[in-house]
C-alpha cells in the first residue's frame, strides 16, 4: 500500500497538454528548399518509415524525397543520406488535389536504417523531380505551436532556403519501425477537438506488471463547459459507475475551456485491478461539458507513440454500450491515491507442520 505521493500519469506527452494546436507546414516551392527535423534516438530501432505533416498543395506538386541524414557540427542536416549505396530514402508525389491536406503521411523507405540509441539524426524532405515553382508546390513538415512544447529547443525543426534556420516548437516529423509498428517516435496529433457525448471518457488499462491494485483519487483533464450547469466527473467499468462527483460549472469557471483538477468525493475509494478496463471522464446532457482529445489519423501507429500505447483510447457511451475510437486519445492525467504491488512471485514458505525433506 502507499500514498502515491501525487503521482500522476499522463495519457499524452507533457508538452502536448494544451487546448489548441496550430500546425504550420513549411513551403517547398523551389528546388533548393528543404524542411527537416533534428533529434536524437530514444532507443535502438530499425527505421522503416518516415512521417510528416502535410499542409496543403498548390497546382500540381512535384516529386519530393524524404530521407534520413546525419547532423553536422552546425546542428543542421549534413546532406549525407544514411545507408550509403542502399540509401534510407524514398520519393513521393503528392496528389494534385486536397486528399492529403492537413493529414499525417507515412512514407516507406526504400532501405531501412538501423539507428542506435542516442544517435543524432535528421529527417529531411527536399525536392526530387518535376516542375516546382510558386504555382506547383506543397507545404509539409514544419512545426506545431500552441503546445506546451512551444519552447522545445531540441529536438527542433529546421528550414533551408539558402541556409538552415532552426525553429522552436514540436517538429512535425516522425519515424516508425514497420507498417504495423512496435515503435513510433515523433509526430503529433492532427488536431485537438472536443468530444461531447452522454459520457466521454478515456478508456484505460493499467498493466498488471506495473501494479496489482490501485485507487484513483481524481484526474486533471482538458474539458470545456458552459456556465450555469452541472455535469458528472465519473469513473466507470463495464458494469457501471464506480466513483463519481457532480461538478457545478460555475465552480470551475464555466463557459471556458482548460485544465480542471477534479477529485472524487466518496469517503472510501474503490480498489481497482490492473489488467481491467476502466473509463474516466465526463457525463452530461445538453452539451454542457466536453472532453478534449488529441485526434490522429486512422494509422494506429500514431497511438503506439503515446505514453500508454494502446492502453488508453477515447470511448463514448450512448446509454447502453461503450464505443472505442482508437484515433483519439483524451488529454488526461490520472491522479493515483494508492498503488499496491503485484501479488507475489515465487517464494518458499516452509510450513511448520511439514515433514520429510527436499531433494533435487
Amino acid at each position: 500500500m502507499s500514498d502515491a505521493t501525487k503521482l500522476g500519469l499522463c495519457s499524452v506527452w507533457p508538452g502536448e497538454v494544451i487546448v489548441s494546436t496550430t500546425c504550420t507546414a513549411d513551403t517547398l516551392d523551389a528546388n533548393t528548399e528543404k524542411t527537416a527535423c533534428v533529434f536524437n534516438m530514444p532507443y535502438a530501432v530499425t527505421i522503416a518509415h518516415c512521417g510528416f505533416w502535410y499542409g496543403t498543395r498548390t497546382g500540381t506538386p512535384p516529386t519530393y524525397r524524404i530521407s534520413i541524414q546525419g547532423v553536422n557540427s552546425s546542428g543542421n542536416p549534413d546532406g549525407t543520406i544514411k545507408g550509403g549505396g542502399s540509401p534510407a530514402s524514398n520519393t513521393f508525389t503528392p496528389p494534385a488535389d486536397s486528399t492529403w491536406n492537413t493529414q499525417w503521411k507515412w512514407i516507406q523507405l526504400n532501405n531501412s536504417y538501423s539507428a542506435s540509441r542516442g544517435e543524432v539524426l535528421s529527417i529531411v524532405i527536399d525536392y526530387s523531380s518535376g516542375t516546382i515553382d510558386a504555382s506547383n508546390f506543397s507545404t509539409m513538415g514544419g512545426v506545431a505551436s500552441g503546445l506546451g512544447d512551444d519552447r522545445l529547443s531540441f529536438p527542433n525543426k529546421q528550414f533551408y532556403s539558402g541556409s538552415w534556420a532552426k525553429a522552436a516548437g514540436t517538429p512535425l516529423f516522425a519515424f516508425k519501425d514497420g507498417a504495423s509498428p512496435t515503435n513510433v517516435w515523433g509526430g503529433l496529433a492532427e488536431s485537438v477537438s472536443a468530444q461531447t457525448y452522454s459520457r466521454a471518457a478515456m478508456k484505460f488499462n493499467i498493466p498488471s506488471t506495473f501494479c496489482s491494485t490501485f485507487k484513483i483519487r481524481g484526474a486533471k483533464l482538458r474539458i470545456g463547459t458552459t456556465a450555469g450547469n452541472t455535469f458528472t466527473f465519473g469513473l466507470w467499468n463495464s458494469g457501471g459507475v464506480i466513483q463519481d462527483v457532480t461538478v457545478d460549472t460555475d465552480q470551475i469557471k464555466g463557459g471556458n475551456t482548460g485544465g480542471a483538477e477534479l477529485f472524487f468525493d466518496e469517503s472510501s475509494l474503490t480498489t481497482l485491478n490492473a489488467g481491467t478496463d476502466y473509463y474516466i471522464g465526463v457525463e452530461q446532457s445538453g452539451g454542457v461539458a466536453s472532453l478534449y482529445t488529441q485526434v490522429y489519423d486512422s494509422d494506429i501507429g500514431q497511438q503506439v507513440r503515446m505514453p500508454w500505447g494502446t492502453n488508453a483510447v477515447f470511448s463514448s457511451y450512448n446509454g447502453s454500450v461503450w464505443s472505442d475510437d482508437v484515433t483519439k486519445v483524451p488529454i488526461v492525467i490520472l491522479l493515483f491515491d494508492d498503488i499496491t504491488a503485484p501479488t507475489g512471485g515465487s517464494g518458499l514458505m516452509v510450513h511448520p507442520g511439514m515433514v520429510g525433506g527436499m531433494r533435487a
Partner: protein
Amino acid sequence: MTTVNLWTIPYNAAYATGTTTTLSGTSAYLDGQNEKEGYIFRVPRDTTITHLGMNFVSYTGTPPTYRISIQGVDASTGNPDGTIKGSGNCYATFTPPADSSWNNTFQWFQLGTSYSATRGELLSIVMDYYSGTINTSNRSQILEYYSGQMDDVNLCPYADNYVPSSWSKRNMTPVFGYKDGSSPTFVGGHPSATRTNGTSLGTNGYRAALKFSLPSWFCSTAKICGLRAVINSEAAGGSSKFGLWSSSGVLQDVTIDTDCLVSPATAHQLVQVFFDEASLSTLSSGTTYYLGIERVAGTTTLYEHRVTTASDLLSNPMGDGWILSTYNGSTWSDTTTTRPYISPIFEDITAPTGSGGLFVHPGMVGGMRA
C-alpha cells in the same frame, strides 16, 4: 519486465506557451478594506488543514493586519461565499513586517482552529483586511498566479480577486497553499517562492541535477532512457552534457552539440534528450541517483522551482525527496528547498517484488499438516 512505452513523471516546464517568453507572476495589492484575494480548489483526500499560505511579494509603508481563512464557495458564482469554516474560527491573522524580510517568500499561517476537509470538498482560501491603517501608502502585495506554463487557462483551481467591489476569476495557475501541520504529511496547492531561477555551473566538470530515489511501491527496478530539462546551454560550438549518476559515479551520459539547439546560450531552453548507451543501467528502488547536466567548457544553467520551506515540495509529484543537488568535482550537496525542472523518461519499470508465496519443490516428500 514491462516496456512502458517511455513514460515520464512530468514536471511541468515553466516556459511553455507559444508567445510567452518568460514565466511571469501576477500579483495584486490589497490596499482597501473591502479588497480580497481568493483561491478556489478541491481537496484530493481527507485532510485536517492546520495552515494556510500565500506568496508575499512586497510591502508599502506599514502594512495593516490581514486575515487568511478557509471559506466555502458560492454554488451559483464559484466565488468565496464569505462564510468562514469552523463556525467562523478557521482563520489566522498576520501583520507583514514594514521591511523587506518577507518579500518574495511563501508565508504560512497557522489557523486558530483546524479544519477537517473531506475528499472532493470545494473550498476557498481568502485573504482580506483585518485591522489597522490600509491605503495605497500602507499595504501588501501578494502573488495571484503564474502564467507562461503548460496549464494556463486553468479551470480549477483558480485565483479570484475582489477589487474594488466584485470578484474576478483568473485564468492561470494560482499560487497558494494548505497543509496538515508544521511538519506536514500533505501539502496542497502550489506553494512557490520563485519559478524563474536557475543554478549556474561555473567550473568544468561541475553538475546540477535532480537527486531522486524511486519508491519501493513504484517499482523494484527501472531504466531511464532520457530526460526533459529546462536549461541554458554553453554557447554555439560547445557541448551540452546530460548524465545519470549514482554516488559511485557516472551510469549513463550523452553529449549534444549545442549547435543542435535552437538558441544556444539562451535562457530557458526546453530540451528532450536520450542517452546513447547500447544498454541502460538497471536502477534499484530506494537507491539515490542524480539526473541532470554537467558543465563541459562554458557556463551552463539548470532552471528550477524554489520554495521557502523544504516540506512545501510535498505539493509536487514524488514529494520532498526529489530535490536539487550540485556536484563540485568530488561531493554532492543538496538544496532541499529547490526542485529542478527535470523530468525522467522511463524505458522500463519492473514492478515491486511480490509478497510471499508457496513454491512446492517437485522433489519434496512428506506432507503438510496444520
